């Protein structure tokens, strides 16, 4: 097992970084099922560009942890073909920006095949890697692909936030017989989170398609995914001091989206703010707005939904510009107050 940062707390919980949680998930699934293998750039001998696959090559060898040349379209296609022929590949994109090179294989070869073949041909593959903004990597390396992939029927799109999410959802994704796009976040890799005893088990999985209420509240619902769940919780802590209780929902899965959980919350709080790192147009927040409007929760809204998103520009480089191009805690607080009209 790869060395992981662990602090043992009295309750049986441990603290694990997201990176180590992902590593554990892959290690456990590689051990459990010989058909599972990992391929991508630098995943083997380099221990992973972001060290997510550290130690796996040493443990499992060349056959199961495969370094590829810089050929996204080629190796993504190879991974899909291997999945069609009975294996269960994990295809890593160094970042999802590079998945654009291979997007035809993800969509046309992986996502659509089960349907086109009327169920004859399954594609049990996971495409994983860091998604969205990093720190100072500028426009071509900072795009969020949640909306693009979640647009397509035939794919499942998963976006974990903390370590438990990362581990449980990655294990579920690997065990899922459908193609899954697993969107990680580079800025979260080094962040430690508490992991319950249950989550430390080798059989711990989190169901795909179910959101989690991270914080209960009565005045307003905040819905987010990935890194911004943390921002929402931070904003909620600040707002609580002013007597505003936010209910924070961690989507966990973008597609299929757990609209029911959002609706149940909105029917309780009557107000909704969505928070995401991606661009506003045709984004995750836009979809949530449409779905709420189409369902019974619409009648419970006391004000229109507000979306907090990344700014509609290619990501600038300078730190101050970059900071202002992404949702900040103050933006969430501002949106909550605006929605509540306080």
């Amino acid at each position: 097992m790869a060395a992981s940062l662990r602090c043992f707390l009295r309750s049986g919980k441990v603290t694990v970084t997201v990176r180590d949680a992902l590593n554990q998930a892959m290690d456990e699934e590689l051990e459990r099922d010989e058909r599972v293998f990992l391929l991508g750039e630098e995943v083997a001998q380099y221990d992973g560009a972001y060290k997510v696959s550290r130690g796996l090559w040493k443990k499992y060898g060349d056959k199961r942890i495969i370094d590829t040349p810089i050929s996204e379209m080629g190796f993504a296609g190879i991974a899909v073909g291997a999945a069609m022929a009975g294996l269960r590949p994990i295809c890593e994109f160094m970042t999802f920006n590079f998945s654009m090179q291979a997007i035809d294989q993800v969509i046309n070869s992986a996502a659509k095949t089960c349907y086109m073949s009327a169920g004859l041909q399954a594609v049990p593959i996971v495409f994983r890697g860091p998604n969205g903004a990093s720190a100072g990597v500028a426009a071509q390396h900072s795009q969020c692909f949640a909306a693009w992939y979640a647009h397509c029927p035939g794919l499942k799109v998963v976006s974990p936030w903390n370590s438990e999410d990362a581990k449980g959802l990655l294990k579920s994704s690997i065990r899922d017989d459908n193609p899954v796009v697993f969107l990680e976040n580079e800025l979260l890799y080094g962040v430690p989170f508490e992991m319950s005893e249950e989550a430390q088990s080798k059989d711990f999985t989190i169901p795909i398609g179910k959101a989690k209420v991270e914080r209960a509240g009565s005045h307003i619902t905040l819905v987010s995914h990935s890194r911004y769940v943390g921002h929402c919780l931070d904003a909620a802590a600040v707002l609580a001091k002013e007597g505003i209780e936010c209910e924070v929902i961690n989507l966990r899965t973008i597609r299929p989206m757990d609209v029911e959980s959002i609706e149940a919350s909105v029917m309780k709080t009557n107000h909704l703010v969505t928070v995401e790192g991606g661009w506003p147009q045709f984004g995750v927040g836009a979809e949530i707005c449409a779905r709420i409007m189409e369902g019974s929760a619409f009648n419970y809204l006391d004000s229109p939904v507000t979306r907090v998103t990344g700014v509609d520009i290619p990501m600038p480089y300078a730190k101050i510009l970059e900071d202002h191009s992404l949702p900040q805690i103050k933006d969430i607080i501002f949106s909550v107050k605006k929605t509540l009209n306080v």
Partner: protein
Amino acid sequence: MKTMLSIISNALCRMTGRNAGAQTVSEGARVVVSRSFADFTPQATFDIKKCDLHQLEEGPPLKAELTRDQGLQYYRTMQTVRRMELKADQLYKQKIIRGFCHLYDGQEACAAGIEASINPTDHLITAYRAHGYTYTRGVSIKEILAELTGRKGGVAKGKGGSMHMYAPHFYGGNGIVGAQVPLGAGIALACQYQGNNQLCVTLYGDGAANQGQLFESFNMAALWKLPCIFICENNKYGMGTSVERASASIDYYKRGDFIPGIRVDGMDVLCVREATKFAADHCRSGKGPIVMELQTYRYHGHSMSDPGVSYRTREEIQEVRTKSDPISMLKERMLSNNMASVEEFKEIDVDIRKQVEEAAQFATIGSRAAAGGSLQPHLLQQPAAGGPRDEPLVQTQVCQLDLNPNLQIHSDPDR
């Protein structure tokens, strides 16, 4: 050997007082006297064209053996594909088939020759001109035509159409030019990984030969010695663009660079068979991938929307039909070597026509793909999943492809 057999056969004819293949006509009745089985040559050896080689010291043999049974089987296969494609042409013009329809007539020797040289447990993937391979890989004429007409009885229940038909060890039918090549290399990776001595035949056309993802696939296949036979079906035109106008090098068998290559006469089923056997041996011996170029020709245009005469002459098409038709070539070889009779071939033709006609009936009157149920996405249901509200997860049959029994799941029996 050939001349000696003819002499013997003629002598026998003189002795029995019959002419080869003759019909005895008596008054008021027409009696066909068929030759008895014992009169036919059971096996013959034929010269086949020498293949051009790239990065290879030796190539496929220059002679091919053909038994009577094999010959009749190859004939039947090719003629079935031919008639099926012509029926599809007819149905398309009647507007019973719609959308894309890329026909394979002229290229039958490629599909038949390849299938004759690989095992059913080997794997095959091709592009959109796929009806021939769909048939040789085991899908019935009925299921193919019914898929083209969008009926529930189609192999993909009407959801795939012309370019998306599947069968065990046959991965379609792929619509995006060149995308099937990395897929094929991946299937070969799975064969290597599972240690099952199987290989993957990965087909593409002269148009796809310029796609970047091919070269990415060649690189990885060679690097990892994947058991993949990359086959370029060079029918001289990528849609409306001739090879000379599309490629800086039209030696497609050399395009693998560091991968050995063979250029093959794709109109001769025996040549294709011998070359593919050679290639399969190469892959199975662990030497890695190999490239084959089959020089072939399509009689139809690129698709049913292309008459196929704006970029080539009718004379050219006619010349290929008269001089190089794969079905005629095989038939003539067998007849001139006394391996079968004209009547036999006629019988086969009649039988095939009947089968194709029946299949077309089935495809025309069968029930259409039903909307409602089939508009739900096919997602495979997981016991652990929450089962989200508005996207019903449909339990579907997953085609379990020949997994190596040594590859185990180590826990969780409920999987």
